[in-house]
């Protein structure tokens, strides 16, 4: 990836939250300070016009990364650079405006992310007016009608309220709003998790179509690996605040290297390939208040040894993927191709 192609670059991003008891309680009971390690030393780059997906279970830090990139959450250390500008560097709201115009967000719950008292036209017009891209008038109305048509709604819908729409239609309204300021980059945080599968397919197809037509770049956050497999060019797998494996989505899905990625791919129920021989992840994700030493995955990992418990693995490159695992580095793990993919690839349309 040449430097010119990179629209977003995240460098050693760390976000920690202070979850300490109140000062007085600490003084009286001697309770220690507590820190949530939400995101730890995360590095990745997103190429213009591509989709980068972050997957992982709840609490692994994917939404915190999305919020940091959107400028809603401040980084503890490390930096996020968007179109060559450091996101943390804005001192005023006004200074951040050009950045915000180019970076919009689609949220998970279309029932919570739309103001119930605003008509759809006003919701979609808000980014345009905030960024002073157009003044009120017939031209703005025409632009709103165009946006609504782009996402598969009718221009007449501008006069309606959000409650008059189904979940899928509401998510279309959120997409129209996100596109209103002509952004280059859209952060999609679980955009279809609240939707039924047949509606999910409509929204995913719409997102792909818009990406093709408008050259959008997506950062897709999802816990649904099948959605990610359908959408992503590149993929980052997160576990307890760290990226354990990242790179070409096709390679990761076909030949996952990290034991966590393998287990995650095996645990997803897939009606197209049910009851296959599956490795089960035992145990639960440890608390980010006290992440395990060494590799954070070692207490659940079937391949863990003394080194894994003591020393944190550094990312190494394997073909188009970067993976942080001692077992992979030492060759203690075979790298099987996922057979089921080849079996099924014949009937891919």
């Amino acid at each position: 990836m040449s430097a010119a192609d990179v629209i977003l670059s995240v460098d050693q991003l760390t976000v920690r939250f202070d979850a300490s008891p109140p000062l007085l309680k600490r003084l009286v009971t001697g309770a220690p300070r507590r820190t949530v390690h939400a995101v730890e030393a995360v590095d990745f780059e997103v190429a213009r016009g591509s989709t980068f997906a972050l997957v992982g279970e709840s609490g692994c830090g994917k939404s915190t990364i999305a919020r940091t990139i959107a400028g809603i959450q401040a980084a503890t250390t490390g930096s996020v650079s968007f179109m060559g500008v450091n996101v943390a560097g804005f001192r005023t709201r006004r200074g951040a405006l050009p950045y915000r115009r180019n970076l919009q967000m689609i949220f998970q719950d279309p029932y919570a992310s739309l103001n119930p008292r605003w008509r759809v036209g006003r919701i979609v017009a808000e980014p345009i007016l905030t960024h002073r891209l157009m003044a009120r008038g017939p031209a703005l109305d025409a632009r709103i009608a165009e946006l609504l048509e782009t996402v598969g709604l009718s221009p007449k819908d501008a006069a309606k309220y959000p409650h008059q729409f189904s979940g899928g239609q509401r998510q279309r309204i959120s997409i129209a709003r996100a596109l209103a300021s002509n952004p280059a980059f859209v952060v999609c945080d679980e955009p279809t998790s609240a939707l039924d599968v047949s509606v999910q397919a409509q929204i995913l197809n719409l997102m792909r179509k818009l990406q093709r037509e408008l050259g959008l770049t997506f950062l897709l956050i999802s816990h649904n690996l099948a959605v990610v497999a359908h959408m992503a060019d590149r993929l980052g797998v997160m576990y307890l605040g760290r990226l354990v494996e990242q790179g070409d989505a096709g390679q990761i899905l076909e030949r996952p290297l990290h034991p966590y990625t393998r287990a995650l791919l095996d645990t997803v129920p897939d009606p197209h390939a049910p009851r296959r021989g599956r490795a089960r992840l035992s145990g639960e994700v440890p608390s980010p208040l006290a992440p395990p030493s060494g590799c954070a995955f070692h207490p659940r990992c079937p391949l863990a040894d003394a080194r894994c418990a003591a020393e944190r693995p550094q990312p190494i490159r394997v073909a188009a993927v970067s993976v942080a695992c001692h077992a992979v580095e030492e060759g203690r793990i075979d790298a099987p191709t996922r057979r089921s993919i080849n079996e099924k690839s014949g009937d891919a349309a």
Partner: protein
Amino acid sequence: MSALLEVRGLSVEIVARRRRLTAIADVSFEIAAGEILGVVGESGAGKSVTGTAVLGLLEPPARQAAGEIVFAGRRIDTLGAEAMRALRGKEIAAVFQDPLTSLDPLMTIGAQLAETMLTHLPITRSEAQARAERLLAEVGIPAPRERLSAYPHELSGGMRQRVVLALAFCCEPRLIIADEPTTALDVSIQAQILDLLRRMCRERGTAVMLVTHDMGVIAEVADRVAVMYAGRVVEIGPTRALIEAAGHPYTRGLMASIPSMRRRTAELMQIPGAMPRPDAPVAGCAFHPRCARAFDRCAVERPGSFQAGASRVACWLADPALAGAGA
């Protein structure tokens, strides 16, 4: 009749101020002893209402308008509140989506298990205590004796759902109604809970009505599947047959719209539009406005249920009388 649960022509309506909305209509299915029946559908399809009706937990304004529910040869939809309460928890248990709301936050795990057993079984408190500990061990809770005195908030989501399973199984029920039991959980925990549910049912011969929106979960766990759409069962049949060769166009569309990790396609099949809402019912087949293969008859006349292979399908395309006409 070997069926443990038989639901025949069940209709539930919701009486709103001026009109009656039909939540489910003419729902019929059977569950054999020890069988796991998956009930799948999108939100609003009526799957949870069906489960609630079987449990006898319908509350106004919802009421059963027609049909009957027969459990172990006995009609239960006409039972009084007391008789139904005695049945529920003992013979028919329930597992709901959110373990935090189905557990009492002010009672210890041990007390909740003991209370349920003492209500339904002729055992002493110390027997109940010992049995509770065994159950917790069986559902995979580490240090079960210590956990008996823990409160629900002290456990993680996965552990809580294990406790809910222990509660459901504590009186050795013959049927469990599980409504989205793993929807609130992460995939790795979901797999653990589904494995556990399936294993415990197989060991004990417990039947399950598994209500879920997730075809993947159905494919993993269920023996047979009922697909619901707009308050009706549109297709019911053995899981493998239904997934591999769905008879109803809705089931087929549903399967094709699920992205797969093993099949990357340029575009997902999508079903246009959305399911009709109960306040705006559709004449004829409820799916016909979204169906690519609909013809004149679909818009006027509601299809009956026809045998198609191992499944029963409510679609005119499956009508044997039409088979020669080529659709």
